[in-house]
């Protein structure tokens, strides 16, 4: 009986039923060539399994652990109804800015400029009496700067 490669492969992989296995066992006993082909299938399998098995021993990267437990953040209540999404690609990018964000941005920018202005005033001793009264009550300078008066309101609210 001639055995095709697929049958020998299935034999080597332990995929044949008992009757087929017994047939090939008997054939192998009489045919060293057949035994060699089976041995080659087993050797290739062992090499493939061996080569990649070391991946199992490597530490799993944190990002994968997080992605795997996406529905189960460690700090969530027992019910786990708080869903934590992985930090990287699964997270949706921020929505485009609308008026509120732009106004907030402009306001903080303005505040920064005004604070800088106020500091400059302090350094040059040209800040207004109002600002001094609010921010530096111990200072007293008669100098008055009209240009910095809008700044004073912001500084006052800040102080």
């Amino acid at each position, binding site marked *: 009986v001639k055995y095709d490669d697929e049958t020998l492969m299935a034999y080597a992989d332990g995929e044949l039923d008992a009757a087929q296995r017994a047939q090939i066992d008997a054939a192998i006993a009489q045919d060293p060539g057949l035994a060699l082909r089976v041995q080659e299938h087993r050797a290739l399998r062992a090499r493939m399994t061996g080569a990649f098995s070391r991946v199992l021993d490597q530490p799993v990267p944190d990002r994968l652990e997080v992605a795997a437990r996406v529905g189960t953040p460690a700090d969530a209540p027992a019910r*786990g*109804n708080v869903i934590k999404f992985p930090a990287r690609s699964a997270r949706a990018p921020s929505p485009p800015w609308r008026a509120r964000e732009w106004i907030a941005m402009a306001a903080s920018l303005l505040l920064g400029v005004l604070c800088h202005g106020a500091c400059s005033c302090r350094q040059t001793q040209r800040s207004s009496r109002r600002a001094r009264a609010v921010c530096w009550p111990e200072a007293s300078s008669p100098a008055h700067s009209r240009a910095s008066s809008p700044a004073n309101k912001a500084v006052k609210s800040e102080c």
Partner: protein
Amino acid sequence: MNTRIRTEENLLARRIIEHETMSDTSEEIGERIASLLPRLRRFARSLSRNQHDADDLVQTAVERAWRHLDQLRPGAKLASWMFGIMKNAWLDNLRTRRRRGEVALPEDSGEHPAVSHVDTEAGLWAVSEAMNKLPEEQRLAVALVLVEGMSYKEAAGVLEIPMGTLTSRLARGRTALAAELADEARGDIA
């Protein structure tokens, strides 16, 4: 685009909660997926040329699994389902690369040197290069049966192909792999 992603996130959240009430809690599913990570990484590594690409593939598959949790049939084996998702993710990835004209990865994108010992890496490298030369359907069959140790039946299930197709792909893949590794061994001696 943003709206679509947001909707997907909402859907995901709802499905996780729905699934909780269906059978396992999301914690249990998370633990079960996490326990599969070493095997998923090995499967991905046998399909990819380096561990970094492999881990990206695992992440894609895990994220898809959470998004499509409702498609996991009751009683279905989570491992088989996850391997099937990874198979699809890998094929999608290959198609995308081909559309972009990226036939293969650049030569210098091989194994990350810091991963393991040089001598053991060399053995993995040779086998990995040989795998990389197989047609994708043969690579999948070899990866599931020879690397993962799945039965023919389970592998055929993951790949959604008949048993006969699996065995013929596996046999052809084995022949090509054996020839490639023999060539490579001869090349080392020469």
